[in-house]
């Protein structure tokens, strides 16, 4: 039997031997078609248009303008900082909630709470923004309560300030952050936590030495998904952020709508994309380094007597 197998393989027709490759192509095709048609080709077209001026001549002037302009670099820095802050705060808030949900709630109430967490996630973004606006505007419920407690003036509001934008972005990031951290928390074996505790580890030590190493990969996933979405925020700063809450997304939109150079808007978008990828990569590397450092560094190579001369 063993001797006949290679002979049978050798005798396969070219069509039959192409079967597995065609099968793989068939499985990959739907995803690849979508990826190529809706992501790769548009991205190529966008990159090319970023290198064109208004007379369709090839030039790097658009990128030079972005990278040498203090205005847009300042706006880029502010945008990255706001996105980083709001993503980090959302994860910090979501993590304890996710741990509590995974460890300390009954299955019935967990389903209800997860359902409530998902509602804002599937609600129209504009509806959420305008709902938040109605909540915090002067004369709105928050202002009404605080002014009746004599804590603020009746017309005081954080609306049209950078803080309104930051709060909204944290709020928008929370559902995804909770869901991802819930998944991470649920995958940690309860007996591991119990073992750490019975060995006398304090809660903070359990978190640092057990929970963090087992969840850090999901923290990176969480950061990546929320940061990338937040960094391109346009509606939130435009509607809530006021004159001092500008982000780069607004500048890109304004650039496109005013009829100034389209290529420059593309250059702004691509610089934002690359800067975002750098931040995400840096965070992933940092978390990976922390994990390795916590584990005592990379395992030492076993030095054999033969190499130890």
């Amino acid at each position, binding site marked *: 039997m063993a001797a006949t197998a290679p002979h049978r393989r050798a005798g396969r027709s070219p069509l039959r031997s192409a079967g597995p*490759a065609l099968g793989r192509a068939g499985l990959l095709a739907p995803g690849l078609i979508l990826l190529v*048609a809706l992501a790769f080709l548009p991205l190529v077209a966008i990159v090319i248009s970023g290198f064109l001026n208004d007379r369709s001549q090839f030039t790097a002037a658009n990128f030079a303008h972005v990278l040498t*302009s203090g*205005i847009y670099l300042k706006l880029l820095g502010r945008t990255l900082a706001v996105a980083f802050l709001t993503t980090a705060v959302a994860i910090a808030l979501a993590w304890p909630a996710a741990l509590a949900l995974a460890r300390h709630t009954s299955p019935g109430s967990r389903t209800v709470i997860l359902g409530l967490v998902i509602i804002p996630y599937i609600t129209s973004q504009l509806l959420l923004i305008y709902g938040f606006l109605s909540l915090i505007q002067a004369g709105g419920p928050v202002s009404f309560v605080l002014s009746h407690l004599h804590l603020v003036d009746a017309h005081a509001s954080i609306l049209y300030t950078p803080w309104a934008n930051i709060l909204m972005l944290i709020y928008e990031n929370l559902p995804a952050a909770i869901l991802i951290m819930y998944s991470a928390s649920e995958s940690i074996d309860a007996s591991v936590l119990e073992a750490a505790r019975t060995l006398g580890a304090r809660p903070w030590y359990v978190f640092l030495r057990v929970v963090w190493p087992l969840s850090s990969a999901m923290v990176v996933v969480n950061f990546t998904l929320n940061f990338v979405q937040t960094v391109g925020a346009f509606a939130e700063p435009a509607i809530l952020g*006021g*004159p001092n809450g*500008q982000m780069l997304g607004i500048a890109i939109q304004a650039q496109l709508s005013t009829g100034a150079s389209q290529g420059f808007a593309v250059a702004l978008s691509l610089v934002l994309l690359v800067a975002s990828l750098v931040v995400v990569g840096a965070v992933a590397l940092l978390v990976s380094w922390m994990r390795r450092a916590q584990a005592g560094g990379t395992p030492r190579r076993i030095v054999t007597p033969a190499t130890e001369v």
Partner: protein
Amino acid sequence: MHSPLSRGRRGKVAAVFAVAAAAALILSGCSLGPGDGNGSSGDKTLTVGVWKGYGADLPWVATEFKKKTGAHLKFVYIDSEQNLIDLLGQSNGGIDVALPNIQYIGQGIDKGLLHELDTSKLKNWKDIYPDFSGRPEIRKDGKVYGIPWTYGSTGLFYSDKLFSSAPTSLGVLWDSAYAGKIAIKDDATDTVPTAALYAGQDPQKPDMTTLKPTLQKLKDNSKLLYSSNDELAKAISSGTAQLGIANSDGIGGIIASGASDIKYTIPKEGAVGWIDNWAISAKTKHLDLAYDWLDYMTSPAFLDEWANNPDEAAPAPANQKAVEALSSEAQTRIQANPDKIGELALQLPHPAKVLQSWQDTWQEVKAG
């Protein structure tokens, strides 16, 4: 001779090429190409490139137009004037009629995207205010490419709770007494000419270096930089915005919807103005139908019905007869004030370099 490994690689490469080819086919199939203009029932269809919710797509318009011509309407919505010009170029006749404003129509003419209009075939041409129909921006080499439809201004709005009498100067926007109560359009093509008018500069050719501190003071005084009428309406209804600059039609709608303390005025320095024009695509396959559309859109029958509904926030018609047929209440509401036409600093075409310098300065002020 190929190893099994290289055959596998060949398979993968072939699969990737097949996927790319399929994707290219999908993309080409999705393009806005010129149809035969006939629906599945064989009826005529006119494709209109226009802003969403801007009169042309009112439900009764389609009914009326079908009654007049038997044709259906299809709308391609735009999100900016530049977007309209780009779509006209890409559609290759897929859009029959379009609504470029006076700032952008020149681009469409220069690129050969617009049909030269025979004004003798336009039933309402003679009734358009001469200030509008005589504009050089809708012409090239003496030929006409657009018929003015509506006009408006971006002037001063104020709450009569804040002012016992109407402010007469743009200076109130720079007065620190009103700081934190002001809403400004977040659009360099409005803020820069407005600041230039206040500073006594030519709104078409402002000196951006000397204008920057003026823009900075305007931004510092502002509570809100808005990009849609909805944002402005919310700020007005909460009492946050009591003064600012706004489009005449947008603020008309906000006033009509219940903001009775809000008033609109064109200050002594003037205001930024705009004119929207209907034009026909150079590659349309429905030329007669396109002329029918232009006639209907510029007729008093359409314009007055639109203007008489306060909920629609219609702008002022460019057709003099349509304006004269309106009640004085309606004329005031839609800011149809022919006496002020001469005071408008129209948003005119500018080279991209000039617009970029406006944009850069406004961004710098906002980022500061």
